[in-house]
């Protein structure tokens, strides 16, 4: 049964991504992420033995999991799931900086802010509530980052996942990631 909540997801086309890092810059500017810290990052993975190589480039971030261990491990309720969607957020006024959520994330998507509380990707919730795209998706020069609601069968992300082959990262950990990579 589909829940009435929005199930936001990102679908990222690894065939289009050129690893320019604009998503990282856009995020840092939009969210004013301090020096040396990043909410998203680019992985360039080369597989095989020379000269038979293949490369995959992925823009990675928090997966806004269906079953987020960062929320269940948080001792104070500072880590929480948004009321109307699957977006996991941090309430900095409740955060003690115990770092249980950092340890619990299989994607290592969380980090400690200089002030001491934990921060991470929010799928740019402050933009998406206004109907805008997250900063990374908005900026991407190859338009390889798609954002939308998987509970809406007509959204771009739903159509892409129906029509293309895809994978998600570390699904074996059982957290139900919502960032998909088109292959």
């Amino acid at each position, binding site marked *: 049964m589909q829940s009435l909540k929005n199930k936001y997801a990102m679908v990222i086309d690894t065939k289009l991504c050129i690893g320019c890092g604009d998503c990282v810059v856009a995020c840092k500017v939009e969210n004013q992420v301090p020096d*040396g810290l990043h909410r998203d990052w680019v992985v360039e993975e080369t597989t095989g033995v020379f000269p038979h190589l293949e490369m995959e480039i992925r823009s990675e971030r928090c997966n806004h999991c269906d079953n987020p*261990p960062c929320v*269940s*491990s948080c001792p104070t309720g500072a880590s929480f799931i948004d009321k109307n969607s699957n977006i996991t957020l941090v309430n900095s006024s*409740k955060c003690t900086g115990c770092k249980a959520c*950092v*340890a619990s994330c299989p994607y290592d998507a969380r980090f400690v802010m200089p002030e001491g509380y934990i921060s991470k990707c929010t799928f740019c919730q402050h933009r998406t509530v206004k109907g805008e795209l997250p900063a990374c998706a908005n900026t991407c020069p190859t338009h390889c980052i798609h954002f939308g609601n998987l509970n809406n069968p007509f959204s771009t992300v739903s159509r892409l996942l129906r029509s293309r082959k895809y994978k998600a990262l570390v699904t074996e950990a059982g957290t139900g990631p919502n960032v998909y990579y088109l292959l």
Partner: protein
Amino acid sequence: MKEITITTNKLNHLIDPSLHIWGWEIPVYLFLGGLAAGALLIAALAIVYEQKKKLPSAYSQLAIVAPVGLSIGMVALFLDLEYKLHVFRFYTTFQITSPMSWGSWILMLFYPFSIILTLGTLKEGWPKLYKVVAPLPVVKQLIPFCQKNLKQFAYYSIPVATSLGIYTGILLSAFVARPFWNSAIIAPIFLVSGISTALALNLFFSKKPEEQNFLTKMDLIAILFEVILIALLIIGMMTGGTQKAEALGLIMGGAYTTHFWIFFMGIGIMLPLILEIMELKGFKVSHYLTATLVLFGGLIFRFIMVNAGQVSTWVNY
């Protein structure tokens, strides 16, 4: 085969290249928490079974280790918090799915019991300290109450101390993201290790040869249990799929092999085990040496577990 993986624009502080969010504070806290749990458990058992004559130091001297050890441990825990001003947030909520939330409430439950058992036995165990604290305003009324209800509170202390000992292990084992920790058997290992270190510490207080002999015997049993549980942990990881096998590699040829096998299993487990057997066979062995080795083993075990667990991961970049 992965030829090369380049991750650009990450290198977050404490997260990359490998997770290192918990420094010395957490292992020290887990060690002292286990020690405190073991101390309260042993003291409570000695009181419940009325072993005042046979085990005078376990009965009346060990309980004080619980509040003192835990307090030092909690200072270490506090130092680890990145947002120290928000420490009160642990106590404005209860999160049923979070082991750390359970732990913070167990600690609050542990304190009163450990203090009652300490005050109830202070007169016999630490007479000099008793003379100092007994005339203090609140303590003056508390001490007769504690002495009168000692046995009853000792009963309640058994589950409380056991849950603290177990919690120190669950704190690590509940993280699916860290394959080296993600084994439920870590909880009983930490409990048994805590009991073993508390018995060792008790040897420092004990003056009576009969009691020393009993404590050595009990510690021998605890260490044997620990060895069995650690063997089970390793077997579980060996047979547990790629992630577990890779995590096990950290102590099987990986970066923590020497620490684990020589310093922990060798000097912290096997050497005291042999020394204790020799002592019980009648050889003259300093039980201070044995006890020191056991305590060292317990501490380095927490360090290895916390550090190796942080290195183990699902994504190798």
